[in-house]
């Protein structure tokens, strides 16, 4: 085997993919040709570098949720599909959904259907929070810091806000942490901590308030989303998701524990 043939086959030799007789000839050549042996060593080092350095991407949690949701949708019988609007939307290409979401928000300004009477100031905050929630569902908008570890998420807010949101670990209760981001509500920066529940995304908005007194939990519904609001200890909290009301209430209780 000559040098040109050897160099052609080195790559396959490193992978152990040459036929035995060819591999034997090649290794014999390497013992007699210093130059080819040097090239072999270099290529071997390169392959090691590639194998160690090239790592898998981690699929985004939202993609995970989309795939699961699409599979469930696929499973369901074609007739009788009482699916909420948004879940069906998950099957269409993501960007169309995002565009549709923008349209809904932008065109209607969202008619806020509250299940109980609240002062209008509060329901307009609810609208803002809901708009932000929908916006967060677009690709790359959900989290600024994506992590399922509260020890990554909580410190991330340091220096970005003048208060520190609580980031409890609720994974064991079936609400894995997905991450956190900064958002704006009423023209002020607020903390958003993001949790998941099966294919659902839950946004928890937190900011300090001057309003005196606590406000009890109220659950409102708008456009198929549930919004849970309460105020305690000088902190406003809004929890938004397309998760069902019962589980969202349960989540709200866990948050405060």
């Amino acid at each position, binding site marked *: 085997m000559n040098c040109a043939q050897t160099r052609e086959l080195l790559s396959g030799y490193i992978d152990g993919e040459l036929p035995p007789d060819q591999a034997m000839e090649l290794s014999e050549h390497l013992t007699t040709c210093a130059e080819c042996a040097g090239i072999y060593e270099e290529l071997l080092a390169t392959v090691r570098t590639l194998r160690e350095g*090239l*790592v898998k991407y981690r699929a985004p949690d939202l993609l995970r949720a989309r795939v699961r949701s699409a599979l469930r949708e696929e499973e369901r019988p074609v007739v009788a599909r009482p699916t909420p609007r948004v879940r069906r939307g998950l099957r269409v290409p993501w960007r169309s959904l995002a565009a549709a979401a923008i349209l809904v928000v932008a065109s209607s300004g969202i008619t806020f259907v509250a299940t109980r009477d609240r002062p209008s100031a509060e329901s307009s905050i609810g609208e803002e929070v809901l708009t932000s929630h929908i916006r967060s569902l677009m690709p790359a908008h959900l989290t600024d810091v994506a992590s399922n570890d509260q020890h990554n998420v909580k410190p991330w807010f340091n220096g970005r806000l003048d208060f520190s949101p609580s980031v409890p670990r609720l994974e064991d209760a079936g609400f894995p942490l997905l991450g956190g981001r900064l958002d704006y509500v009423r023209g002020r920066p607020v903390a958003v901590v993001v949790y998941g529940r099966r294919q659902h995304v839950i946004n928890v908005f937190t900011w300090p308030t001057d309003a005196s007194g606590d406000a009890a939990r109220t659950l409102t519904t708008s456009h198929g989303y549930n919004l849970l609001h309460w105020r305690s200890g000088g902190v406003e909290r809004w929890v938004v998701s397309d998760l069902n009301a019962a589980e969202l209430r349960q989540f709200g209780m866990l948050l405060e524990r």
Partner: protein
Amino acid sequence: MSDSALESFERIVVPLLDDAYTLARHLMRDEHDAQDVVQEAYLRAWRHYGSFHGGDARPWLLAIVRNCGYTWRRGTRVQRESVAYVEDEHGIGDESHHATDAAALAASDRAELRDALDQLPLEHREAIVLREIEGLSYKEIAAVTGTPIGTVMSRLSRARQRLQETLGLGARAKEGGR
């Protein structure tokens, strides 16, 4: 009955999401396109789950991902290639989840490797992903890409040489190689 098929799919195929996304990400060089491709691929995989006859599901799934990626690229044409490449430089963000052997390398080195990989022609990129990241055999790569084994070997050989040059890893290979 269909329940158990879905359960089996969720147990065997859904956990391969990182593998699917990694291939799609390097094929498309755009995270949003990659997500769309993977979702489409999973739907297709589920619809054709009956054609999977056991064994390692990775080559089977990756072949579907690759086909979806190629179809998608044909549809959207290549006009955003250069733009997508620039975006990708900033899109690398999940390394903390891969603390294993990659911990030895600085994040910047890994980013440099990914960049170098994403500069290769499509056929070379997929060969490298399937071999160096997925660890598939030449036979499996040949099956996934629908090419003869000899072609797999020569593509890998060229791709490695290109990467070696781009990354400045081999001084000799330049004058010696072909």
